[in-house]
């Protein structure tokens, strides 16, 4: 730690801000992700030594691991230049304060908010502009109610400070170790922001916990970490929303989500996300479910240039269960490679995967899934269903379901359908007065209905609106 930095800690916020700005320009001249960069991030966040050590270890692993290039049908990541990643970190931190006014936001974002029909106050909160305190109030009210029950919900950076022991035990240790894949390693090295949720034993959080308002306003950035711990017999529904396209100079998003589902606990993780079309969205999300625990993943993946995302669940204890519902939408120039992974490591475990994808204007969707049933996981069952819908002959859709079954007393089902939006279906709706666009939209919203019905109403509405906008091709 340099003495200059020590000094700065004593000065006021403004000076620290200035310091960041200086550092920012210095960073830009550097090439590649270096140890110094990682040290500065950790220092900046005033982290304990063990976290810095973890970051550095993750960095080493990141540097050792090769880029994934040889998966069959893998999205092209050749444009992802690791040397360009780091210089982009600082601008994001600068943006934490957000733009000063609505008008300062990129037109694309303003436009999308308008099209989503989001009220002004909400727009401001979502975009991190000005009216942050409005969302703070909402958040504060709910937080008090949770705190009485011992529930913790806070920013991940803050959790490292205030709930150090819990974080130390769970953060990228058992669930998503940095060694998992190159981008998990990258995430481990430079992660920043995110959410921390802790639910004590036998506690039910009735209302969904939403990281909706905080996404942009607190600068969760592109490397946010979400850690959810649901103790025995507890129940929580966590929603990470942000149907707004996250504007950023970045072209890489690499988040991490870790969920611990205790014995007989129930966690639902829902997300509706829409990335700007220049983003590479490479995430690692995993849950571990103990005996009788139940995990549910519900996700809508929109936007991005390429997405590789396979939320996974390890069914560790007897009778644990897992349910995945995913939807992907790929338009022109987009390659959305997403699916689910389930490891049945105990007897009587159950899983279901329901995947829906839509491709248009030459976009590509791929379902890539893995179901692993370990030797000894008898009486386990899994059912995988993936449906793809295509608009035209230029679009493509693939299905790659891998099944590794090492136990004979199991029940395995897989079903896949790929279809083009039927001309007869469109004509039927047209003959009832709907124009071509409305007819297609109706068919698509029907197609994704199993997902929208699982989401709280405001997310369902927004997901539908997003799909509509995507279909009009009016989202930038």
């Amino acid at each position: 730690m340099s003495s200059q930095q020590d000094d700065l800690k004593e000065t006021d916020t403004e000076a620290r801000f200035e310091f960041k700005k200086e550092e920012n320009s210095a960073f830009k001249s550097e090439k590649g992700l270096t140890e110094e960069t990682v040290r500065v991030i950790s220092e900046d966040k005033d982290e304990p030594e063990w976290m810095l050590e973890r970051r550095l270890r993750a960095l080493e692993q990141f540097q050792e691991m090769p880029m994934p290039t040889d998966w069959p049908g893998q999205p092209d990541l050749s444009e992802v230049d690791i040397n360009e990643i780091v210089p982009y970190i600082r601008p994001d931190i600068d943006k934490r304060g957000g733009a000063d006014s609505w008008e300062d936001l990129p037109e694309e974002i303003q436009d999308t908010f308008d099209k989503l029909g989001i009220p002004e106050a909400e727009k401001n909160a979502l975009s991190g502009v000005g009216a942050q305190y409005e969302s703070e109030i909402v958040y504060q009210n709910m937080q008090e109610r949770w705190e009485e029950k011992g529930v913790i919900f806070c920013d991940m950076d803050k959790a490292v400070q205030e709930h150090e022991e819990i974080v130390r035990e769970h953060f990228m240790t058992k669930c998503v170790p940095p060694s998992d894949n190159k981008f998990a390693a990258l995430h481990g090295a430079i992660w920043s922001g995110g959410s921390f949720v802790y639910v004590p034993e036998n506690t039910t959080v009735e209302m969904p916990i939403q990281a909706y308002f905080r996404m942009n306003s607190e600068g969760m950035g592109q490397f946010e970490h979400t850690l959810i711990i649901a103790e025995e017999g507890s129940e929580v529904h966590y929603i990470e929303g942000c149907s707004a396209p996250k504007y950023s100079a970045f072209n890489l998003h690499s988040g991490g989500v870790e969920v611990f589902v205790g014995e007989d606990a129930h966690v639902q993780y829902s997300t509706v996300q829409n990335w700007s079309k220049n983003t590479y969205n490479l995430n690692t999300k995993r849950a571990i479910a103990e005996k009788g625990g139940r995990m549910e993943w519900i996700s809508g993946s929109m936007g991005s240039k390429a997405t590789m995302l396979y939320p996974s669940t390890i069914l560790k204890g007897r009778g644990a269960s897992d349910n995945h519902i995913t939807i992907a939408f790929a338009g022109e120039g987009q390659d959305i490679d997403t699916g689910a992974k389930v490891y049945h490591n105990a007897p009587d475990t159950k899983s279901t995967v329901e995947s829906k994808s839509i491709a248009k204007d030459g976009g590509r969707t791929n379902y890539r899934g893995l179901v692993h049933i370990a030797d000894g996981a008898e009486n386990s069952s899994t059912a995988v269903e993936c449906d793809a819908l295509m608009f035209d002959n230029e679009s493509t859709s693939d299905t790659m379901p891998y099944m590794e079954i090492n136990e004979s007393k199991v029940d395995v089902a897989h079903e896949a359908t790929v279809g083009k939006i039927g001309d007869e279906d469109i004509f039927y709706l047209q003959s009832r007065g709907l124009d071509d666009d409305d007819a297609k939209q109706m068919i698509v919203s029907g197609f994704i209905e199993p997902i929208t019905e699982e989401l709280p109403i405001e997310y369902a509405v927004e997901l539908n609106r997003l799909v509509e906008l995507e279909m009009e091709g009016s989202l930038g």
Partner: protein
Amino acid sequence: MATLEINDLHARVAEEGGERILLGVDLTVESGDIHALMGPNGSGKSTLAKVIAGHPAYEVTDGSISLHLSEADVADVDAELDDEDYHWELLELEPNERAALGIFLGFQYPAEIEGVTMTNFLRQALNAKADEREELFEEEDEDEEEAEADDDEGYETSPMEGPADDGEIGVAEFQEILSEKMELLDMDEKFMQRYLNAGFSGGEKKQNEVLQAAMLEPSVAVLDEIDSGLDIDRLKDVSKGINALRDEQGTGILQITHYQRILDYVEPDHVHVMLDGEVVKSGGAELAEKLEDEGYDWVREDAFEAA
């Protein structure tokens, strides 16, 4: 009072070297009248129905399909109209525009649309029709239109039902009309929460087609083999619905059928026989009875002699 007038209509499958199916059809259907269109398989009846509705799989090579409306038919439209505004050449219009003007096609095999509830579908269809009618009858200022569209967005209702302020027909009003029509057709209210035609039995699908016609109140309804696959009870329900379309809404019906059976319940004012892409014989209800007894051979012979 509306009239659908088909003149010397020629159509073929819309692809290179596509088969010619309609070879000069002449037919006129006025509102309030029931026409039965009969003929053997492959004579072009279903193609005619689809061409009237604007199916893109067929290309019209000659002839015309005109719709003439009366002042009463456009009473709901808030626009000042000249005399010539009541006459439309359907071939120039999209399928949804034809629907908005009052053309309804009852399908022999209706599409099944998963995830779209009957309620949502019917309400959207009604609103779409109302919107389209306004647009067809008056040239709106485009800016104004856009401003209106912006106002339409809201969060108040379930996404399954669309925004509360979307369109012209309110939820309560819609429910009221719907309940009334369903009662008439002896349909269970649970029907409305099911997905459009998905998993419907053959009979339910046909009932649903009639229900849609009842809701959309067309000037002319073309019903393509609405009697196929119905048991006797369902046939009576569907027939009752068709008669009500005529009696209560003054809809003109063009009923395509193979069998006399439905004509016992829906008595036709006119019967036409189609052979090889043309209407070769027309008459009253007695013509259908004769066809039932004697088949089509004699019609073919007559037509051959006449030619």
